[in-house]
């Protein structure tokens, strides 16, 4: 099925002279470039971009698209990524010309409709978080983490406190320690206990007057709710630290429990997960940050405010602000989809989203654990982590083998080898938008795979366009761009 347009790179399909004309001739009286620009700053030749006709271009990219699995085509239980179905209305409405064609520097009075939606989104996120103030500016979850940690640093600086340590559980996403390092903090890892939750003794031993922030993902990456969260927050607050909640897994708790009520001082949302922004092959996301009142003055500028009833402004005059974390105001296209999603769910709908996400995950857990052991817990929140360790030991079939074999059956693989505390981890998050029939089919395929000859599973996938790429070679001799083949002069 793979034709030339799919296997060749756009550069190899290039036919000089075949480029499409998308623009008319310039149409104004022209002057010689060299008379108005310094000769040494002019290009001596055109950039060597490919030249393709429109039919070739379309056939190439549509063929490429067909080599992807996606939520619209396949079950995609990639743990911690919340690959739920995105209602199409949200995409259509976010692309209304009255939103899409707005320049970020046009006067405030000409974008009041948009500001009204964004201001309302700030308020809705604050309510869902159980917090007081929100910035929509960060471009992604990791960017939200960085923003929140800079807010924490500014808060302590303002109070004249020197705190340089961020505590992070060993099951946390890698972005947590990386964000802490970028914000100038030293990181200390906190161990998990035998139940997969934060080890309170270990935490207690590591908390001190140097502690700035404890970052916690709740539910954690094992899909478990940190039952001691209130106690943890109290412990951190007792030494004068702040609690940051990574909102990556908010899909489990909308309208059921609020981070602010658990003692968190700040958190970020992932609208591209929880509020159904499309994942776009890796982005764009967004990373709004919600904070309690004592941190509100430190939010990035500008903040959208309702100055008088129905009149919205961008407030730049905030002397304690950490400044700007990106240009302009945020990933508006993603935020509008989040707004549309929350408005169509309403309070009951949002709670039902989490109930169904947790129901689906627990149903899948109840079936999968009969096939592959799930080391932590008989119940979970939105996701759970199975371990292929036993079958690895007995038959040599690894988590990666199972993941690859699932692809043959038309299922995207779970997240593998994360979190690190589970050996041969398969992290499975079904989300609320999968039917029982899909989950049952997935379980049947898992059962089948376990009975298949080991070699067959080792060599999977068998039906995909490619199989088991050599990643070692890719890293050892990096080829990061296409280069034209040198023509031999000897002919």
């Amino acid at each position: 099925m793979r034709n030339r347009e799919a296997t060749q790179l756009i550069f190899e399909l290039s036919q000089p002279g075949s480029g499409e004309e998308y623009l008319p001739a310039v149409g104004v009286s022209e002057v010689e470039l060299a008379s108005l620009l310094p000769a040494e700053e002019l290009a001596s030749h055109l950039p060597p971009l490919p030249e393709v006709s429109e039919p070739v271009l379309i056939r190439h990219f549509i063929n490429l698209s067909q080599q992807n699995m996606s939520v619209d085509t396949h079950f995609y239980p990639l743990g911690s990524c919340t690959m739920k179905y995105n209602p199409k209305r949200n995409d259509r409405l976010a692309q209304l010309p009255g939103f899409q064609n707005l320049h970020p520097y046009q006067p405030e009075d000409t974008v009041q409709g948009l500001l009204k939606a964004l201001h309302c989104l700030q308020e809705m996120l604050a309510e869902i978080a159980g917090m007081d103030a929100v910035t929509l500016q960060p471009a992604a979850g990791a960017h939200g983490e960085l923003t929140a940690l800079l807010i924490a640093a500014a808060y302590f600086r303002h109070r004249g406190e020197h705190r340089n340590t961020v505590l992070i559980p060993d099951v946390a996403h890698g972005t947590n320690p990386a964000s802490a390092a970028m914000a100038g903090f030293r990181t200390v890892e906190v161990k998990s206990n035998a139940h997969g939750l934060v080890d309170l003794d270990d935490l207690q031993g590591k908390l001190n007057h140097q502690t700035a922030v404890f970052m916690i993902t709740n539910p954690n990456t094992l899909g478990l709710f940190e039952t001691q969260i209130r106690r943890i927050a109290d412990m951190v607050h007792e030494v004068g630290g702040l609690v940051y909640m990574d909102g990556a897994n908010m899909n489990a708790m909308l309208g059921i429990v609020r981070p602010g009520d658990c003692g968190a001082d700040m958190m970020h949302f992932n609208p591209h997960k929880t509020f159904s922004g499309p994942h776009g092959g890796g982005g764009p996301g967004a990373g709004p940050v919600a904070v309690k009142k004592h941190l509100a003055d430190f939010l990035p500028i500008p903040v959208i405010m309702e100055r008088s009833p129905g009149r919205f402004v961008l407030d730049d005059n905030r002397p304690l602000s950490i400044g700007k974390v990106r240009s302009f105001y945020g990933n508006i296209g993603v935020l509008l989809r989040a707004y549309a999603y929350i408005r169509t769910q309403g309070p009951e709908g949002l709670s039902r989203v989490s109930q169904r996400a947790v129901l689906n995950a627990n149903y899948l857990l109840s079936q999968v654990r009969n096939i592959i052991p799930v080391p932590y817990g008989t119940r979970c929140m939105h996701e759970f982590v199975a371990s292929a360790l036993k079958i690895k030991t007995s038959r040599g079939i690894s988590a990666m083998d199972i993941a690859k074999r699932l692809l043959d059956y038309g299922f995207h693989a779970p997240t593998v080898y994360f979190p690190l505390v589970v050996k041969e981890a398969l992290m499975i998050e079904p989300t609320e938008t999968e039917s029982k029939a899909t989950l049952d089919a997935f379980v049947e395929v898992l059962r089948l795979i376990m009975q298949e000859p080991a070699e067959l599973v080792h060599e999977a996938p068998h039906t995909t366009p490619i199989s088991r790429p050599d990643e070692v070679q890719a890293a050892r001799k990096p080829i990061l761009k296409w280069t034209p083949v040198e023509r031999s002069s000897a002919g």
Partner: protein
Amino acid sequence: MAYLPQTEHEVRAMLAAIGVPDVDSLFAAIPPDLRLKRSLNLRPALSELELTQHLEELASENQATHQFTCFLGGGVYDHFIPAVVDFVASRSEFYTSYTPYQPEVSQGNLQAFFEYQTLITQLTGMDVSNASLYDGASALAEAVLMALGAQAGRRRVLIPENVHPEYRAVVSTYLQHVAADIVVLPAPEGVLQPQTLHHALEQGDTACVVIQQPNFFGCVESAGRLAEATHQAGAILIAVIDPISLGILRRPGDFGADIVVAEGQSLGLPMMWGGPYLGILACRETFLRRLPGRLVGQTVDRRGNRCWVLTLQTREQHIRREKATSNICTNQGLMALRATVYLAAMGPRGLRRVAEACFQKAHRLHRQLCEDAGFKPLFSAPFFKEFAVQAGSSDEVAALLEGAEHEGFFAGLPLGRWYPQHGDAFLIAVTEKRTEQEMDHLVTILNNLRQTR
């Protein structure tokens, strides 16, 4: 149509299989005193029709650039987007997939990102490009961090005042907790004078110099001479560029930039009031291991087929955690795809034509305003598609822009917000979309407004 696919019957069957009486029992791990005892205080749910009417109404309360004529720039431009860009980017298989963790079922994304990386190197003349970052401003902050990392012991970061003010603000935010000193260089004539840079470099200790080509005021810098001076002092040159300008101007790789940063919005992304955008970051091979973000590399599969994978991941947060080159997780996938399709669709001659149209039209309007209508240009330096003109005072700037707005024109960007010394000036950008009629109309409006004052 239901968003949630489970029927009540199925829900009961699932609960029975789990062995709990009701859905609420699944939340037993949450201490009761932490549970929210009420509904969220949100407005009731809207149907799709009601949502559509609501958002159409909000959209209509904005004055968008399809109703207004846009001469606004400052890093975001009203360029034409060919239909193929929207068409490809709206394919579900691109739109609803995620980071290519499973290369066997992600070759479409991986190959597209490999093509993106190649196109960016072709466009900029650099050795390598990553698979994209959030936006131009955060890409610059990442580039400065790369340069500081490569120049251990050197602390100074030189940035002229004609680099985008918001980019400079973001760099300051990112460097708050880094041992570095940002030195802002004056550029009273619009461009950075090579002797100003020479002088600043004489003090030593400079890790990197940031220039913007064309700069925030639209002026074309003596990039080659600035690169030479930077390298003589052993510093790294970071160039912020406008991708469209490379249809005319010398590529940063050819004038000596070591790291190149750009906002990719011009390459087929809607303006969308500031995002999502595309952070372009490319560099010389020397800095490869310091690059932040995703990288796609070519390899072969077990059957010997050429294919693509995420590579050099030991730079990244999921492996290196606190020692990673950055905290960034994914790239800006869909936006990178848009830029890929745009560049492939335009090709070298299409890019040249866009650049020439911007250049010629901007210069026509400049002649009309400054030679015929008597506006004074703020700077005399050569420019590409954007230029600043002076009015009598900041009040007059406000009155002109407001008056033009009443006539359906976003006539320009007042500079006083960032440059008090230029409070009497505003910045005008002209893209290939602007017509002779629109420009003539703008000149008439501004003339009339001036005369009635």
